[in-house]
């Protein structure tokens, strides 16, 4: 753990905004829903990181989770699209304006059931987006049916047990090319904050699966996505600390320097991974997948930053785009080739 006592948070952040300017509408989700905690973390992290809300887009699908963007960053544009298709909408928006920062918020049903196709292709493209799955193993908004992340044997309130294996979105994301892959728990304020901040500092797809219990439909005994189950079976792969580029790194002296892996992120911030698992190399895809698999086999909920690649080009970089965002393209600035061009083409075709 880092030792320096955190100074009382300043009233305004480094871009002069107050915390309340990062808030959204009052939540209409159930009291105690994990998703609400995640919204709060997003508010704090964006505030503390000094993210400019006018440059943020909040993109989501359909579900309780996908509603949550209404409850944070009230001065950012939001797009609550259709079920399972947030990735394509986010991709398009970033094509139109690569200066935007995309926060994608989705549910396990939205992503792993109906949306797994778009999820996969987004990961493959390494689209620069913070992609948060608010994962409760069920469809909250339609009253608690199993989603595709429900664990084998996990039980519905009615007692019915799930007989299919879960899709591990983190393993998939790593396998497919996402460049920042982590899992956290809505109930762990500190870890979730560090991971979200690191994700915000990363340039590429940051895929974060946040176990986020559904208190109304999936928080009972027998569910593997309940608060109790997660608390009891959680295992931290690494302790995660984040130091933004505008602060200085101070490594706690409780930990031997050698045990800390420092990763410099795109914006100059630093991610500190304190090695709880021996010899874990977060840049090794296969090690990451295997670790996930091993823990899952044991019924453990592994959290932490599993995989990180700060070198790979993101999708937008592959497109050789001009500097000013494409939406600004108009007749006078490159959107309409000169008359001579049309003449040339007509001659060729004549």
């Amino acid at each position, binding site marked *: 753990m880092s030792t320096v006592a955190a100074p009382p948070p300043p009233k305004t952040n480094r871009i002069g905004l107050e915390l309340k300017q990062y808030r959204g509408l009052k939540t209409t989700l159930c009291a105690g829903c994990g998703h609400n905690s995640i919204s709060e973390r997003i508010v704090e992290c964006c505030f503390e990181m000094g993210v400019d*809300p*006018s440059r943020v887009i909040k993109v989501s699908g359909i579900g309780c989770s996908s509603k949550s963007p209404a409850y944070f960053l009230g001065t950012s*544009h*939001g797009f609550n*699209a259709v079920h399972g298709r947030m990735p394509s909408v986010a991709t398009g928006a970033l094509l139109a304006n690569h200066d935007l920062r995309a926060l994608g918020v989705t549910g396990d049903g939205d992503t792993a059931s109906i949306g797994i196709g778009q999820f996969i*292709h987004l990961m493959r493209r390494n689209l620069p987006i913070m992609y948060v799955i608010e994962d409760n193993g069920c469809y909250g908004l339609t009253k608690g049916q199993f989603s595709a992340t429900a664990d084998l044997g996990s039980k519905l309130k009615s007692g019915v047990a799930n007989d299919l294996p879960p899709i591990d979105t983190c393993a998939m994301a790593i396998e497919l090319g996402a460049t920042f892959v982590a899992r956290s728990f809505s109930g762990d304020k500190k870890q979730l904050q560090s991971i979200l901040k690191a994700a915000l500092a990363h340039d590429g797809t940051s895929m974060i699966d946040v176990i986020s219990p559904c208190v109304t439909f999936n928080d009972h005994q027998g569910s593997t996505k309940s608060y109790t189950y997660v608390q009891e079976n959680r295992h931290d792969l690494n302790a995660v600390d984040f130091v933004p580029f505008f602060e200085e790194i101070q490594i706690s002296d409780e930990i031997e320097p050698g045990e800390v892996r420092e990763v410099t992120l795109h914006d100059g911030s630093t991610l500190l991974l304190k090695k709880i698992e021996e010899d874990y190399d977060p840049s090794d895809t296969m090690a990451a997948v295997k670790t996930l698999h091993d823990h899952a086999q044991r019924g453990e909920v592994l959290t932490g930053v599993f995989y990180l690649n700060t070198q790979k080009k993101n999708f937008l970089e592959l497109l050789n785009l001009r500097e000013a965002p494409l*939406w600004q393209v108009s007749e006078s600035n490159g959107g309409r080739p000169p008359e001579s061009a049309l003449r040339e083409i007509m001659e060729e075709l004549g």
Partner: protein
Amino acid sequence: MSTVETAPVGTGVPILSDRIVNDFSVQVATVNGSGSQTANLILLRALFQMGIPVSGKNLFPSNIAGLPTWYTIRTNKKGFIGRKKEIDFLVAMNVETAREDVLDLPAGAAVVYDEPLHLDALRTDLHFYPVPFTQLVTPVCPNAKLRKLVKNIIYDGVLAWLLGIDLEEIRKALYKQFSTKPKAADLNWNAVQAGYDWAKENLQKADPFFVERMDATAGKIIIEGNAAAALGSIFAGVSVVTWYPITPSSSLAETLMDYARKYRLDPEGKATFAIVQAEDELASIGMALGAGWAGARSMTATAGPGISLMSEFVGLGYFAEIPVVIFDVQRMGPSTGLPTRTAQGDLLACATLSHGDTYHPMLIPSCPEECFEMAGTAFDLAEELQTPIFVMLDLDLGMNYWMADQFKYPTAPLKRGKILSSEDLDRLGSFERYRDVDGDGICYRTLPGTENPAAAYFTRGTGHNEAAQYSERPDDWVRNMDRLARKFKTARELVPPPAIDEVEGASIGMVVCGTTEFAAVESLEQLADEHSLKTSYMRLKAFPFNENLIDFIRGHDRIYVVDQNRDGQLYQLIRTDCPAELVSRLRSVRYYGGLPIDARTITDSIVEQEGL
């Protein structure tokens, strides 16, 4: 009549009293993947260069290589270049279809054929020209592997001699076609000459079909509708193109890519566009909508199956009011249907695509010029109306080569619609995304990234009030839906009006859209010439229809609506829209065989319905 009886023997090209000049159709029957497409295009272009109105229609299978393909070239001095039902001149290169092809010909037609096929045994009322293609190709093409391809070019030479095509024009067309491959050009040119020479020496012209120079194509170009739509988009400032391959729309996106790479780089060589091949149509429309939402001129191109897959997203586009242009290059449906056959069968589907109450504007070009122009109009309308706009091509228009006037350089500024900048917001003091400030149903929007805390709003497919907040209140819902209906009414005024040709004293009228144009105008002449039937004409260019249509219907006793689909989809849309008392004037003419509609089909149907 048999070839033997009528062909004058031994005295070279006969001068027949019934010489038919610049008014016939040539069909080349080959196998796809055999290079015949090149030979056919050269032929088409040579005729075009001779100033003769001409069209070429490729009837190809949904297959990559080995199946029958027919290419039909029609010359017509009056400019009627729609499909003609009868084939006057057949080039029979495909052993598999030759028999049926020959049996289908009208008496008096001519047949060039590969000698070993012995087609002349089939009928006695045709002009047969056997050609030993295999023998001819060997000397001109030493590389045996290429012979299959080169063999086909030989018929260009044979036809040049038989029809009187200027060999020099063939040469020009050929070298243009092979402009990047000079060696192949020479090889093929030799083959053309060999064909010509052989024909000149060995064939006796017996049929009446000839071409002669005219001056009807000066300054024109030859282009496919898809390429024209691509160019239209390029010059309309499209910046985000997302697509998924599907026949017959793929070449729209692919041509766009080629032109964009050449003409849409900024001075630093950076792209002023992004083209993304998505993983499927749900993603391509989703991306295009995301881009439209964020302010880009965005588009996708697809065909029927893609349209069906886009249904949910297009409903979102309608309801959340997001600009996007969707090119639907229609092919024969339902389902996978006939991917390489043409139809106008998605009109109904697109007009109301998605569940719930929805309506979408459609633009319906009939020719490459309109593909070019309407692409621009579509992007303007999408941004002005903040809604998905469909541009309804069809396979005939999109994938065939058409003569066209040179495209006019667009000079009008792009209409980017009602977008509020940060300064606007400061000036106005407040902003409600879905408030009908101007009374036209169209509200103001802001783009993500606008640096102003008042700019943000929440876009959603769920019910919302004027401030874009979620609302389940009946009054909010009704108000919003009524405004959307009002916006669609505004669209009536903004879409291109129909082309109208009111004929004095005509008691009947014909209404068509899109490529039906070509058969229609020819049918008008047939009706007049053969049945003295005066017929007014209207070609609709867009949905929703505007008042012109109603006036047109009102002005005539009977209106024949011509459809290239089984269910009379244009007819239905008109029937739904037109005042009740006029409905009984509507008649329906339908063709749905998968080929482009021809004039005779229309004429026959009208004549029958008129009881003539």
